[in-house]
């Protein structure tokens, strides 16, 4: 019974889709500006590039390339080191900061192809699993 009370909750609403089956892929949710075609993450009401207000929500590619990364040995609050973080360039032309996973076995290399996964990033005070996005090397 105890276990059923634990919920899976995203760390912030509206950032990503959670797959309902194993065959489905998760996606980050961004915005595409109808005026200048700039794609941004997270989704937003005003374009960062041209300040246009006509934006549509888009599911972003779940694969991209590692622009840069680091292994953190001194953690931010609620994060235990060592953990990896980096910037991923998606084909839409958007650079996303993300936690990285799977690096312990596969290693990290700038330019490497990376794939989006939705994973637990922490537990909250009520024991719920807090989900966030991460990228892992393919």
């Amino acid at each position, binding site marked *: 019974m105890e276990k059923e009370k634990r919920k899976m909750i995203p*760390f*912030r609403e509206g*950032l990503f889709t959670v797959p309902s089956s194993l065959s489905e892929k998760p996606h980050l949710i961004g915005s595409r500006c109808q005026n200048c075609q*700039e*794609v*941004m993450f*997270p989704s937003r009401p005003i374009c*960062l*590039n041209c300040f246009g207000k006509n934006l549509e929500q888009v599911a972003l590619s779940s694969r991209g390339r590692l*622009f*840069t*990364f*680091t*292994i*953190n*040995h*001194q*953690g*931010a*609050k609620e*994060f235990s080191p060592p*953990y990896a*973080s*980096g*910037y991923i*360039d998606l084909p839409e*032309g*958007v*650079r996303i*900061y*993300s*936690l990285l996973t799977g690096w312990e076995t596969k290693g990290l290399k*700038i330019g490497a192809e990376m794939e989006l996964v939705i994973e637990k*990033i922490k537990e909250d005070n009520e024991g719920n699993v807090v989900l*966030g996005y991460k990228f892992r090397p393919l």
Partner: protein
Amino acid sequence: MREVCVIGVAMTRFGRYSEIWMEEFAREACEAAIHDSGVRREDIQVAYCSQSFQGRVAGQRILKDLGLPGIPVINVENACAGGGTSFHATWMAIAGGFYDVGIAIGVEKMTKGLIPPNPEDLEGLLGRTYPGRFAMMAQRHMYEYRTTREQLAKVSVKNHQNGSLNPYAHYRESLSLEAVLNSRMVAEPLTLLQCCPVTDGAAAAVLCSKDIAKKYHDQPIEIVASIVTSGVYQSIRKGDFSSETELSKRAGEKAYEMAGIGPEDIDVAEVHDCFSIAELLHYEELGFCRFGESGKLIEEGTTSLNGRIPINPSGGLLAKGHPMGATGIGQIVEIVWQLRGQAEKRQVKNPKVGLTHCVGGATPGIGQGACSVHILKK
């Protein structure tokens, strides 16, 4: 627009002041700057005070015991560029003819540990720290330009060497390259001794219009450029610079244009070396070398105290310390001392033109919140 001079500067030694109220040590810096300037307290007509963590009306709390009743005191927050911003605001108030004499103050009493991100900051919520952010810039610089770990560490060796000669520096020990490289890893490739320490301190500068400067001080230092600017979004789709690089580059270009000079005319500079990689990036952004050549610049000793363009003679943020709101004014203090020939053991050979640069306030989307560049002339 009127021309404006710095006529008085002072700072506390940067360090840890956990037992002293910030009002007390900041007041001491103000008193010393006023004394250095030669103005009477009652001649000061306006004050701008920068800080990030000191709560409400910090400037008034500092000045209350100084007998400056009733003057406008304006409190400024602009993260790590706050000091440059309060100095710019004081310059603007005098250049615009609203006041003749003003004081720019910067102060910070920091709490231990990493600076926490703003609650809205998505990257901060996902474990991005400030050292981590700069570590990622370092990894990319190493990848693109073959910059080495040793070149990065040499920035810290140089700045600690300079800091060892500065009685106002938080850390006054010179460090070997091995000591820097072998210190605890914070975020790869940045080791602890390539990260600025947690530091308290205050600095102040008295400014006045040029036409009355000689009345107060026989060595007024002219402000020939004063710039504050903020970050803008850069599209990777168009292959733009990173927002951080674009910001410091644009601030530098605006300052050079305002002063009517170029980077080759700068004799000494204080730049925002919050991490070793940051100083290398600023060499490139401010035009002291071409993009990708900063590793070579530090390697060849060009920016050492006796090099062609000495950078961070004070020890910089890495050795002198980084009390956020005070840093930008601390840089001005050092450059004024250098131009006056008062920098004692760390004196650069006869500089005539100096530059200060501070930048900060990480904000996803626009890179950094603010950047300030000043050019001062003897």
